[in-house]
């Protein structure tokens, strides 16, 4: 079975899934082109995992059109699974065998697997190849999960919250690994609730909240971020003034004319985090926002 050129890797329209009276996914649309990394970003309970597990064929949609690599996951067979790589959210299995044994064993399920030894190298587990999975650290186990997800040489890889619980160094190394897979041409659908992860890895971010897509676009443009108004802050007569403007430079020039050196000058642009929180309905309150921590200060404003 081969993919016809032009049909996307993932196509979802109007996906719905209800558990009891809880609408986990409520009319979600999603499209992933071949070769893309798309991040599904959203808070816990937004419907990310339900969506991804429907695409992986684990859950049946209540309604909606779902096509993954041209097939309906609910009825697709082994040949279809052979073209997917799945890294599930959290795993507790894999205990009594070594890294090398696992990767070699899972490779036997696939028609045209990658060389298991190359995969072990690629995920950075060479020194741990003879170690039983039980003895691996959390980050190393996650690398093993990825090794098992990619050893079949998938066209499309699902990564469900791959770096939860990682220390910063492990996350950086993991991101490098994902980028290498992307450079080799693997299409990747990633779920995460880390904004920096989405910003670093994704070509396109799809923000999900309440079971539907609330925004999507390249990380830099999300929610029309570039078009968003800057806020200029300064201090005059002992109080902080703030003005929202599309032309911060002009405003700063006017202020400079008035004050010379403008007291307490700041030019604030919303970060991805601000945009995201606003999109999922948790608008950050300015009182809580620590400007130094999450705003870009215009150069030369000091």
């Amino acid at each position, binding site marked *: 079975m081969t993919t016809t*050129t032009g049909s996307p890797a993932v196509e979802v329209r109007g996906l719905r899934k209800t558990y009891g009276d809880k609408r986990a996914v409520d009319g979600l649309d999603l499209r992933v082109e071949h070769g893309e990394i798309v991040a599904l970003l959203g808070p816990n309970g937004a419907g990310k995992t339900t969506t991804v597990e429907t695409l992986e064929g*684990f859950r049946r949609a209540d309604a909606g059109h779902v096509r993954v690599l041209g097939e309906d996951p609910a009825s697709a067979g082994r040949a279809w699974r052979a073209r997917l790589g799945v890294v599930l959210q959290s795993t*507790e299995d894999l205990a009594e065998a070594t890294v090398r044994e696992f990767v070699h064993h899972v490779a036997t399920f696939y*028609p045209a697997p990658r060389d298991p030894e190359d995969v072990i190298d690629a995920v950075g587990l060479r020194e741990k190849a003879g170690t039983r999975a039980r003895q691996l650290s959390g980050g190393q186990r996650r690398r093993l999960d990825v090794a098992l997800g990619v050893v*079949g040489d998938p066209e499309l890889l699902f990564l469900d919250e791959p770096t939860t619980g990682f220390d910063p160094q492990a996350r950086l190394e993991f991101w490098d690994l994902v980028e290498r897979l992307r450079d080799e041409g693997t299409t990747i659908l990633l779920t995460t609730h880390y904004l920096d992860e989405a910003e670093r890895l994704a070509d396109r971010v799809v923000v999900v909240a309440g079971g539907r897509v609330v925004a999507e676009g390249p990380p830099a443009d999300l929610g029309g971020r570039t078009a968003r108004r800057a806020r200029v802050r300064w201090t005059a007569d002992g109080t902080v003034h703030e003005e929202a403007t599309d032309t911060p430079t002009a405003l700063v020039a006017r202020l400079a004319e008035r004050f010379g050196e403008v007291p307490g000058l700041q030019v604030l642009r919303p970060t991805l985090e601000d945009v995201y929180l606003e999109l999922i309905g948790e608008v950050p309150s300015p009182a809580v926002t620590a400007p130094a921590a999450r705003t870009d200060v215009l150069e030369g404003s000091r």
Partner: protein
Amino acid sequence: MTTTTSDRAVRGSRPAAAPRLPGLLRLALARTAWEVKGFARERDAVVFVFLYPVLMLAIFATVFGRQEEVLAGSGVTFPQYFLPGMLGTGVMLSSFQTLAISVAVERDDGTLKRLRSTPLPAAGYFLGKTGQVLVTTGAQTALLLLVAAVAFDVPLPDDPGRWWTFAWVAVLGTAAGSVCGVAFSSVPRSGRSVTAVVMPIVLVLQFISGVFFRFDELPGWMQQVAGLFPLKWLVQGMRSVFLPDEAQVLEPSGSWQHGATAAVLVAWLVAGLVVGVRTFRWRRRDDG
């Protein structure tokens, strides 16, 4: 980010001849080797499932006397009478108990879900389990026969007809125990509780099925309850292999009842298969 979508090699969008999926036989063998290796590494399980029947035979034979006759003049010693019971128990432990626990645990810890996300077919998983059970049962049975013959002077039959009976009773018993084990794995609410749920069943069946006591000395109602379950028939079939025909006087029915034995084992095999296939889940109950 240094690369853009257009720079990258994109796979999946080019037509490629679909390579053939690995065949079921190859997968079954790979899974069997995997399961056997995994089983051998669970040391507590190996000790229990593998050595339990041997230890029990040794204890019971020693307690009741190696040379004592079960029934005066029958020529059947206690070790000889208990050997079939321990063989039956061994088959039940390595088929029913092992699979009920291992499948439930693998469902709970996500092993099954992970396998489901690969192109491994369900049949490959089950054949691997079956292969592991066959290897375990075969090794355990051989060990038990060796110990019985060497340490307890139990005479082993030299009649091919009796070994044929042994073969079909052991295979039917293993098959029925295996499918029932898989079916039963869905009963406990979690992998943590499975041992607690399986153990009492296995123990009670051993007590009422003539494994530890002479079956004909049990109360009639207990014999009838035991007659509903496969272990009693498995053990009775084994007695027909290792006891002389004169020992049929020790059977409540007065005969070996091969027809009924085959019928009950096949009935449990079919029932276990139907229920197992209908209730099998790849995921935990609480997993949507």
